């Protein structure tokens, strides 16, 4: 299928198919969503108003047989941060959209009738807009179930839960995975943007179309080398066995596991919530320790976590969600954490933002630290029903901090800081401060080099080398996020000399072009600069690239360190 731009205007419910502009042809995923938003969205617009646009784009390699290439990017101006935003996830839709020839789906405008809800159906001929009533108010799992019955099991589903319908700024967008569960474009409140367009879900017609590959033989050869580099990597193997939650124990050991709303770097209950315990629990209960979020993934970091009776409880049970509910909220019970994770998936809430919001709420005295049952109750009865307390928690950590007068609020640009304390792991503090999208570890994952010994070694407690480390990783990540690749290919890419060249060979064989490693780096730099320019035009300055002041003033155990990288050093991040 030839690639085209599918455009939907919700103001008049019209749809169009457009030729891909020349300057967008070499872009996909995050590179494309950010470029479209920078070109078409007024940076000062209200994120939930008619002038914002939601852009959905498969990566450059999505829909091909390339290993691990099934990520789908969603982008908009974020209602949480006010910055440009991209979040990506697996699931089945990226590959299906690419096979329909969708380079990007751009959703703009806003219905004039506030009471009505709509759905979009994407097929090779375009997009159909329909009024929707049946699934309004439903959780994500029920939406998938109903749509499977209505449209067949193979249909692709991109959906928002009640949180997105209520336009909570912690709302995410979820994508059906191969097992009819969901994966989530988690961060930045993009679910609220889809909700503001009054779209409950986007369904994608199954298709037998294929993505055109310019040089199929070269593609096959490159894919073999690429997949081998991924499979042979020892970190990929550990991810398959323990999931990302293998990190609880090593981050705790390093003294960088934020605990009790960021007041300590180690959690006494770490063993109970660790990847090792999770693995043993899953095996003992007959769950699945290994599971993929999209066809073609060879790493399998997801899992099926079951309850005591062996029934499905949650999947894609990630380190960051477990850390936030576990160490940050002091809940040392994996079953409570799994229940809360499942509730957040169903409501359509970012499990980092919401869980960190609970940590702030605990500090405010809304519920006690360690109260896992209380978290589940509030999710069900307050957030799910849209009570005032539920809406505050569903709007994230900063909203809770403001509503309750808390000063220890771990956010940058209003987005919750995830599972690595920047005082004890300083490289990640640079990423939190300078990321174009608010605090987000995935934007430049310095943990690899600060803690895990991947891509070299940089002492996590030293100020030296952290800006350069974060810069190099943020540039590389922006490029990877454009390919449709899962970011976990980076572990192989950083340490296996065959990985990155084979990825570039894949891109060249797909499009019949001659990219070099420098071209890929330049792509990453240009994406970051495009995103930064949007933020500056929206009113952000270098003064927004700062961590909350408590990090500089409150030392954390066991290293008793504070955040001590200077503002000048932070600002030098942008010297490229």
């Amino acid at each position, binding site marked *: 299928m030839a690639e085209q731009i599918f455009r939907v205007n919700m103001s008049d419910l019209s749809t169009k198919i457009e030729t891909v502009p020349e300057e967008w042809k070499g872009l996909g995923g995050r590179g494309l969503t950010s470029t479209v938003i920078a070109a078409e969205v007024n940076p000062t617009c209200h994120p939930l108003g008619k002038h914002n646009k939601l852009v959905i784009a498969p990566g450059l390699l999505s829909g091909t047989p390339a290993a691990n290439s099934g990520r789908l990017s969603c982008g908009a101006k974020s209602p949480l941060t006010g910055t440009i935003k991209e979040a990506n996830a697996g699931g089945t839709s990226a590959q299906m959209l690419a096979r329909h020839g969708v380079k990007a789906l751009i959703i703009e405008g806003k219905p004039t009738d506030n009471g009505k809800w709509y759905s979009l159906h994407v097929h090779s001929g375009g997009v159909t807009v329909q009024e929707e009533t049946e699934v309004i108010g439903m959780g994500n799992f029920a939406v998938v179930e109903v749509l499977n019955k209505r449209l067949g099991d193979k249909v692709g589903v991109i959906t928002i839960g009640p949180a997105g319908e209520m336009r909570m700024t912690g709302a995410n967008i979820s994508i059906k995975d191969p097992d009819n569960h969901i994966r989530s474009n988690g961060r930045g409140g993009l679910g609220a943007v889809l909700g503001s367009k009054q779209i409950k879900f986007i369904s994608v017609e199954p298709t037998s179309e294929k993505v055109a590959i310019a040089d199929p033989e070269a593609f096959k050869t490159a894919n073999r080398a690429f997949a081998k580099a991924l499979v042979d990597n*020892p*970190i990929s193997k*550990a*991810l398959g*066995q*323990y*999931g*990302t*939650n*293998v*990190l609880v*124990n*090593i981050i705790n*050991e*390093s*003294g960088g596991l934020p605990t009790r709303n960021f007041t300590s770097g180690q959690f006494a209950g770490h*063993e109970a919530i660790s*990847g*090792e315990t999770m693995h043993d629990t899953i095996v003992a209960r007959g769950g699945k320790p290994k599971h993929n979020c999209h066809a073609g993934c060879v790493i399998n*970091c997801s899992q099926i976590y079951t309850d005591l009776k062996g029934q499905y409880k949650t999947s894609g049970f990630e*380190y*960051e969600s477990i850390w936030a509910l576990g160490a940050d909220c002091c809940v040392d019970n994996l079953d409570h954490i799994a229940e809360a994770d499942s509730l957040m998936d169903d409501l359509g809430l970012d499990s980092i933002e919401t869980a960190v919001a609970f940590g702030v709420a605990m500090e405010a005295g809304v519920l006690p630290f360690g109260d896992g049952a209380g978290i589940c109750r509030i999710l069900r009865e307050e957030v799910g029903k849209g009570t005032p307390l539920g809406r505050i928690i569903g709007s994230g950590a900063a909203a809770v901090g403001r509503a309750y007068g808390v000063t220890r609020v771990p956010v940058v640009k209003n987005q919750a800081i995830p599972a690595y304390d920047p005082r004890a792991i300083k490289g990640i503090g640079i990423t939190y401060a300078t990321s174009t999208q608010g605090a987000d*570890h*995935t934007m430049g*994952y310095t*943990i*690899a080099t600060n*803690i*895990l*010994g*991947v891509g070299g*070694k940089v*002492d*996590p*407690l030293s100020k030296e080398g952290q800006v350069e480390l974060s810069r190099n990783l943020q540039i590389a990540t922006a490029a990877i996020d454009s390919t449709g690749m899962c*970011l*976990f290919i980076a*572990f192989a890419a950083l340490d296996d000399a065959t990985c990155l060249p084979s990825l570039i060979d894949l891109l060249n064989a797909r499009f019949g072009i001659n990219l070099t490693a420098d071209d890929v780096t330049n792509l990453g730099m240009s994406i970051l600069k495009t995103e930064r320019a949007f933020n500056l035009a929206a009113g952000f300055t270098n003064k927004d690239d700062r961590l909350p002041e408590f990090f500089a003033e409150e030392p954390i155990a*066991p*290293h008793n360190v504070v955040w001590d990288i200077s503002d000048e050093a932070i600002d030098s991040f942008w010297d490229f």
Partner: protein
Amino acid sequence: MQLTVKLFAYFRDNRFKQKVTDYPEGTTVEDIIRSLGIDLDEVGVTMINSRHCSLEQVPVDGDQLAIFPNIGGG
């Protein structure tokens, strides 16, 4: 000297999670890993008292040594 050795992920299989053991003075991190029958190639990260350490480093009495295979996530 008495050391607390902590093992993680599959290094625990048929070994232990945490154990206090006597080692002769001058024992290196590498010696300890070998004594546990762990393949050095599989070692990703070692820490003494929550600080990264080299294989040549010599712990002192009362230290905690943590040994991890190659792992990652995020």
